[in-house]
């Protein structure tokens, strides 16, 4: 080990670069595909993407009322009021 501090630092830099150069890299197309797959597979659970599940009272004001409409036929609906 040299007593010259900047030489020591330089040696460390070279060692670090050697380590980083030796990383095995996958193709960007593969990486992108895997990330997409993760997102799409988990999208259903993502409340910020598609909305909080109907009926969930989380963070909604306690006294609000939700109306659910159920379609019986082309022009007939019944409504259910949910507090």
């Amino acid at each position, binding site marked *: 080990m040299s007593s010259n501090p900047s030489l020591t630092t330089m040696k460390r830099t070279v060692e670090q*670069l050697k380590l980083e150069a030796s990383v095995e890299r996958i193709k960007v197309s593969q990486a992108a595909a895997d*990330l997409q797959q993760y997102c799409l597979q*988990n999208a259903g659970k993502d409340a*910020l993407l598609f909305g909080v599940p109907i009926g969930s009272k989380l963070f909604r004001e306690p006294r609000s009322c939700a109306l659910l409409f159920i379609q019986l036929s082309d022009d007939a609906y019944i409504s259910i009021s949910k507090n």
Partner: protein
Amino acid sequence: MGEMEQMKKEAEALKTQIEAARKAVHDTDMASAASGVAPAPRVQLKTRRNLKGHLAKIYAMHWSTDNRLMVSASQDGKLLIWDSHSGNKVNAVPLKSSWVMTCAYAPSGNLVASGGLDNMCTVYNLKTPVIKTVKELDAHTGYLSCARFLSDTEVLTASGDTTCALWDLETGKQKTVFLNHVGDCMCLSLSPDMNSFVSGACDSLAKLWDIRDGQCKQTFLGHTSDINAISFYPGGNAIITGSDDCTCKMYDLRADQELITYQDAALNSGVTSLALSMSGRLIFAGYDDFNCNIWDSLKGEKVGVLSGHDNRVSCTGVPPDGMCVCTGSWDSFLKIWN
């Protein structure tokens, strides 16, 4: 002298080699690869809770793993523990030093931590009849910018002294020091499997570290200014960074390079904070211009904005169950949106 010149040449050659290796696997870009993916819906979230209680700028917030409690830190010299469902304050922890920059909730819910310009990370026990200071982690020679608990016995910190450190809470000593950044470390994020973490610094680099052997494994270039915020993508294969250069970027760990930049010509404020929705699809990025912009992480498009704060958005967080997003601001308020 000759040896120095030789080393410099070797370093340059290695940098060129790394660049070439990255180019060699760059067979497409993220936006093209995502062209077949349906666009994310326009995201319009409403403020569900306005948490009032701090008397000065809020600098940090962190969700508990119970998806309900959260801790916030303000330069009014307090940590506040909130019940996000009721909006009530559950606890207040007075800080010795009011110059706080970070706070963290332990996964167990038993402990919280804070730190800042006092260069220390202070850990508090929330479960004793009166909240007690458990440890003062004192060894950094620069400000504490970020802290995260691995468990009730280990804490990771990032510091303005350019290092990150892993601490043993029982002894109060550093177990491992992570040395490689040449600028203040501003942020860190733990990998989902807890074996590694990433750090962002004022040297505009993001680095991936192995927690156990202390080594820097990969370095990510691209930003042109301080990286203020960083987060692992759920799944653990990518990271998102936010910078003073007004952009966010996604880097893939296995491709070892930048995949996409989230930027807009109209945006010329720095990114202060970021959080991801639980599928990773949405990035909530807080900016100096008082807004939190929402980005589609796959397509690189802005899909919404959270407006309502009267000052810089300094922190954002999504709880593990992904049911909402919290923003904290220099206007002293926290807002919960979904």
